[in-house]
């Protein structure tokens, strides 16, 4: 097939306009050629015989009249075994391999294969000659680290095909033909262990999308108990700079009970990715006993890397997530930060001279954000297994003000909102998720009634606190004061968590249920406390006991001892116990 050719007629920042001679496709990839360099670009608008293309590289040195080669393919990623543990840029270029070839800097115009084409994989066929298959059917599997990596018929194959031949069990490279299939029209196709998939098209080879029900445990107490995330659900973390968004994402990426975690570092500091890059290979995943890196994929398009590739990076991450979901795995995608992605759209929209919406974001901002989060979901696959993709995105609102387009558009489409507050982070109350403003539509594994009780205490405690600021401690009744102390108690022993501590940093669901029962007891018990000083001392003591308890391993015998001390203190001061 003859590829369409074009030549550049305009250059404005990272956008070029190109006159082309034949037919092109929206979102088609083309290469702008300048000297030795081939700059990858994507068609984003077509008008007459002019294509507007965003260039995924610096456009310095391009000239009017420079040639553009179109590929006839949409912007795609390679799907196949060998993705886990990789570090990619926004276009799935492997960064470690790039570093080996070109040293310290990201050389312009270098495109490498995302998969290792020399590595051999031990393939076990499960389909047989004569089987009827279609797009998304499973041909067999290889083992990729701790997972059984399914080998699919490419997802875009439509209609039924008959397996004409399939290789025996053995080791093969990803680009070796492992099967041939034929449809009723007589088209014969050769299948390999990998195929390309356009990033902006969701993978829909499943039977049904279900309502997310099961919680996705993050081991962060305030999230799991109060603002839970569901497998296949979506959530967002907006917060001003310095409120701890990234630390929270890092903690989640370590402790979340997902099979696979994809970290999309989108337009943020390179230094933050480096911590993950260097530390994850050395951390053992307690669930598998293997390095944490084996269940992790990092998509890394940091703030100084080309903006257009930043726009693509969240789609790349979502596509990889959907791919592993197709294998019946639970995948968690953490995007940090979606505001940078939205800004990339804004830059582009400005160059296209589109009519701007609020704060110059394009009018389609909201629908793009919705489309992105809609790629999450719990699905029943064609083989009856369940798989899920959960998406959590941070938002970096300008000036920390949530009344801005990206935060507002995101809130409309997500299932949980973890709003970070500057006040809480200034007071060193981490994680700085605001307990009164945040919400979640998903169900926690803790008792809804108890959670509701606790939330009421928080709410009332806040009211008392506000009042105390006006009338002072003296003007507050002992009853109100105790409510305030209870809410502070809940905050410091349960909502706050020390993410740097090996025990307190991650609280299992069992432990959360166990401890929360006691916290709830303290909140609901009427204590025989006559005056404020006594009450304050009592709750200080209680708080200290619980905090110490949080730092003791549940398997440690000290854990039960501490529990006994706490039980005793509650009983002794409960007003029911009076007169005994």
């Amino acid at each position: 097939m003859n590829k369409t050719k074009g030549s550049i007629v305009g250059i404005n920042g990272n956008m070029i306009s190109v006159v082309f001679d034949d037919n092109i496709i929206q979102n088609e990839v083309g290469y702008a050629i300048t000297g030795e360099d081939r700059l990858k670009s994507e068609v984003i608008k077509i008008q007459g015989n002019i294509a507007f293309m965003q260039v995924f590289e610096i456009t310095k040195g391009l000239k009017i009249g420079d040639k553009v080669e179109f590929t006839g393919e949409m912007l795609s990623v390679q799907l196949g075994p060998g993705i886990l543990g990789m570090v990619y840029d926004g276009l799935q270029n492997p960064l470690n391999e790039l570093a080996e070839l070109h040293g310290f800097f990201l050389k312009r115009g270098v495109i490498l294969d995302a998969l290792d084409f020399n590595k051999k994989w031990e393939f076990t066929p499960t389909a047989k000659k004569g089987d009827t298959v279609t797009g998304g059917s499973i041909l067999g599997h290889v083992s990729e680290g701790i997972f059984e990596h399914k080998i699919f018929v490419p997802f875009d194959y439509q209609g039924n095909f008959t397996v004409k031949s399939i290789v025996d069990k053995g080791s093969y490279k990803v680009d070796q033909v492992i099967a041939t299939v034929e449809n009723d029209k007589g088209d014969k196709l050769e299948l390999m262990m990998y195929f390309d998939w356009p990033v902006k098209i969701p993978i829909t080879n499943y039977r049904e999308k279900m309502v997310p029900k099961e919680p996705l445990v993050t081991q962060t107490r305030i999230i799991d108990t109060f603002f839970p995330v569901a497998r296949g659900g979506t959530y967002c973390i907006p917060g001003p700079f310095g409120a701890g968004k990234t630390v929270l994402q890092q903690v989640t990426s370590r402790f979340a009970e997902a099979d696979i975690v994809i970290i999309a570092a989108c337009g943020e500091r390179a230094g933050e990715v480096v911590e993950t890059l260097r530390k994850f290979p050395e951390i053992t995943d307690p669930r598998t006993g293997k390095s944490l890196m084996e269940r992790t994929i990092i998509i890394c398009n940091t703030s100084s890397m080309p903006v257009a590739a930043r726009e693509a990076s969240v789609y790349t991450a979502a596509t990889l997530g959907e791919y592993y979901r197709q294998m019946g795995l639970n995948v968690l995608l953490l995007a940090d930060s979606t505001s940078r992605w939205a800004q990339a759209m804004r830059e582009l929209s400005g160059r296209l001279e589109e009519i701007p919406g609020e704060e110059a974001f394009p009018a389609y901002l909201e629908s793009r954000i919705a489309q992105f989060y809609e790629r999450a979901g719990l699905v029943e696959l064609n083989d009856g297994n369940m798989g899920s993709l959960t998406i959590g995105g941070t938002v970096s609102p300008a000036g920390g003000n949530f009344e801005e387009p990206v935060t507002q558009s995101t809130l409309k489409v997500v299932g949980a909102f973890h709003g970070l507050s500057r006040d809480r982070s200034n007071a060193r109350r981490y994680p700085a998720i605001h307990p009164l403003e945040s919400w979640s539509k998903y169900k926690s594994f803790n008792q809804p009634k108890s959670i509701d009780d606790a939330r009421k205490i928080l709410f009332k405690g806040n009211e008392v606190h506000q009042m105390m600021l006006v009338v002072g401690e003296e003007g507050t009744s002992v009853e109100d004061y105790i409510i305030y102390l209870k809410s502070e108690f809940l905050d410091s022993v349960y909502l706050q968590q020390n993410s740097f501590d090996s025990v307190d940093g991650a609280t299992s669901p069992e432990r959360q249920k166990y401890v929360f029962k006691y916290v709830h007891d303290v909140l609901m018990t009427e204590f025989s406390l006559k005056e404020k000083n006594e009450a304050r001392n009592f709750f200080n003591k209680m708080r200290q006991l619980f905090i110490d308890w949080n730092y003791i391993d549940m398997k440690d015998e000290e854990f039960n001892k501490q529990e006994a001390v706490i039980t005793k203190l509650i009983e002794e001061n409960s007003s029911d116990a009076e007169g005994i």
Partner: protein
Amino acid sequence: MQKVYNKILSVTGNVITVRASDVAYEELAEVTTQRGKSLAQVIKLENDIVSLQVFAGSQGIATNDEIRFLGNPMRVTFSNNMLGRIFNGSGVPRDRGPALTENMIEIAGPSVNPAKRIIPRNMIRTNIPMIDLFNSLVVSQKLPIFSVSGEPYNELLARIALQAEVDMIVLGGIGLKYDQYLYFKNTLEEGGALSRSVFFVHTASDPIVEGLMVPDLCLAVAERFALKGKNVLVLLTDMTNFADALKEIAITMEQVPSNRGYPGDLYSQLAARYEKAVDFDTAGSVTVLAATTMPGDDVTHPVPDNTGYITEGQFYLRNGRIEPFGSLSRLKQQVNDKTRDDHRAIMDGLIQLYAQYNETEEKRAMGFRMSEWDKKLLKYGKLFESNMMDLSVNIALEDALDLGWKILAECFTPEETRMKTDLVKKFWPKEAA
């Protein structure tokens, strides 16, 4: 082959357009006017219409003035001969020294592969206790100094430049007042540091567009020296002027503004510069300190706001002191456990007590009665401010730690400080205990 054109189609703001062919994006041109020669850079190409931003400004440009395309993007010389030299925002010498044209390198090169970065590990000592003790500066860190105009941020930068343990200093002035430029020059000269410095200075009286190149020039030179094994400290002052220059060009080019007139790519533009801070595993490093003035002391203004999302912390300069509360070095945890046992404890302890002092001070101002404890706090607060926070305090970290213990001992008993017992045993001043 050089291409010469002499028909200017339009002049808007500092942008001119001309009909020309075979011109590359971001290529440089030389515009010759009756006022002299100026460099200009291609910022947009549309068919054969070329838009150029003219560094010297468009005043006095005639429609038949000569435009000569140079066939290369913005470049800067790189050699050891640069040391001790002062250039302007176009890379032309400002001092009386000879022009340097050897070994020209391109500016604004590609970014560092994240896979090649390493976790920061070395502290830069500045002998300013509010930095060393409380918010340590780390090699490869990028930190802005947020302040309102009028604060002594340039004095602070100059002091850090003199005292920081680095091999080299690159100073970039953007819209720098002339007397401040001379101040930097004289201070570094007297301190004997000029011979290991390179200046790129754009003063407030220079055309605003010329300031746009300064960060890229500085960082390109710094990066090259770092690759040769030098630890380079880059000082940029003031990045708000840089952002304003971006704004001016964006508006001239009729770009849709996003927030208070600033272009939508302000974040990316700032990040492209700040992210040049790096520690090369097998070579030197680039550390970036930048002054960012906050119009109206408003940290939610687009420039400090976007900067805060990019940089690894910030120093707030207020009333001539580095604020202990808003200031933050995100990288300090990487280094302050390797200095002295008591570093972190003193850091936290002194700040907590100072926070309590502030509360007491508020109560006192409102006329509440002062308890014994309040009086101790008041004494402590005053001592802390004068002996530790004052910018003129100039002591090594270890002395600052000792000073911290001394201040504590003058005001409190060991129990009142909530310091760990083993640290008290080791460090509490003997004569006072």
